């Protein structure tokens, strides 16, 4: 993930991965809503969307040898733009449409021509929503943090 060049393959991979993270965390309806705001390039399905399972792994003690915790449903798809870029979509759950939209976005992120627009009009607003949701949950959890100092002061 560390990259010194802003145009090297590592940084492109990091950008794709960052976009995939945001998309995987977003609801399909929200992705569809954002995609409606941009012109979708011509594309074909390289792999028809399909549902399957992944075995989710944990680690002994949280940091030791891996073990199989249990499976999760996953949907995946792959598309190719008319201009040649191949995009992949993977997401937890069984929403094939969502996997396909992620694949389409991944292909666009790789296109020099489309990258800026998809980043600005799709990924960035979705990222803001995902971060806001994260912050809301963190703030709710923070309010339940035990402050032992305050308890002692209250008794004095």
């Amino acid at each position, binding site marked *: 993930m560390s990259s010194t060049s802003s145009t090297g393959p590592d940084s492109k991979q990091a950008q794709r991965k960052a976009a995939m993270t945001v998309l995987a965390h977003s609801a399909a309806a929200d992705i569809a809503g954002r995609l409606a705001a941009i012109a979708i390039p011509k594309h074909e399905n390289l792999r028809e969307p399909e549902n399957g*399972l992944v075995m989710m792994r944990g680690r002994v003690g949280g940091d030791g040898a891996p073990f199989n915790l*249990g499976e999760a449903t996953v949907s995946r798809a792959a598309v190719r733009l008319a201009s040649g870029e191949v995009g992949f979509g993977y997401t937890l759950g069984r929403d094939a449409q969502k996997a396909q939209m992620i694949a389409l976005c991944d292909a666009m992120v790789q296109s020099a021509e489309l990258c800026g627009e998809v980043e600005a009009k799709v990924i960035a607003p979705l990222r803001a929503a995902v971060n806001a949701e994260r912050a809301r949950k963190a703030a709710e959890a923070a309010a339940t943090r035990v402050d032992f100092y305050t308890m002692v002061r209250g008794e004095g």
Partner: protein
Amino acid sequence: MYVAVKGGERAIENAHRLLAHERRGDRAVPEVTLAQISEQLALGVDRVMTEGSLYDRELAALAIKQARGDMIEAIFLVRAFRATLPRFGATDPVNTGEMQVRRRISSTFKDVPGGQILGPTFDYTHRLLDPQLAEGFVPEQPATAEASQAATPRVTDILGRDGLIETSPQADSDAPVGDLTREPLSFPADRDLRLQNLARGDEGFLLALGYSTQRGYGRNHPFAGEIRFGEVEVEFFAEDVGFAVPLGSVELTECQMVNQFKGSTTEAPCFTRGYGLAFGQSERKTMSMALVDRALRARELGEEAGAPAQDEEFVMSHSDNVQSTGFVEHLKLPHYVDFQSELGLLRKLRQEFAEANQAVELQEAAE
């Protein structure tokens, strides 16, 4: 016999039709939706996902609805569903140290770095039924506070820095990760297989076994070093993509049990550990799992191992409630032929008994 089979078909069909009717209940009462089950019976959904060994909230909610709230039946349905989908592979191991924590408590350190975060918990409630909840109750919005940017390291990592606790066993790169859904169990089983078995094991069974260790059947002096619940990112190395792709996040509960020391003439004494991990908010489950995981390490740690919770074969062979219910409930399926032969044998034995007695009586009368 053949006539009975034909008669059974229509009876079965009508029984299932009646089941569907009873499942729906009074049709004047609104039907429960999957979203309602998932949102409002969330911990039931978590249990079905954990023991069904499949992370999918919607499917678990459907299973609960179809099973009329019978959790083991719902778990059975989820397990059966798994067989209908191909497996793409295994994820990278999740990093619970980077969990977005919604609850995190330690019973061993008051001032644990990152703080004690109670989160949504039944702890400290009075366990009095609340009549307000019967209908139309609108709860207050949750309080908020500024979230700390401080890391929440695992308590075991903190103890580990001073060498006060044993380190987790590291992976043997030559050994594949054991998977009991692919190979049948054999004993002795390694810790990876034991943890997989416990993770999908019946909560009630593990709770009872964990409790038994506390009552003295394989005592191991546990402290809840840490329990944490929150969202963890999942990544999957996809060969077609060429890097680990993010799949999204899952809710997990982790329990680190800190137990009494081991040591030897060559190794300084240190705390030992038991580990629990489960889907969703499954605190009782992960605590029980961690107690039993530690109990099953008795032999490895050179402890006397005579209690049920320390018996790997006993625990692992009986922890799965789908297997258990399959064998117990099969007793209600037709055993007519078996029973006829038993009945025939019993009649024969009784006749022999009667004849023997008659012979004795005749002999006595003759004397």
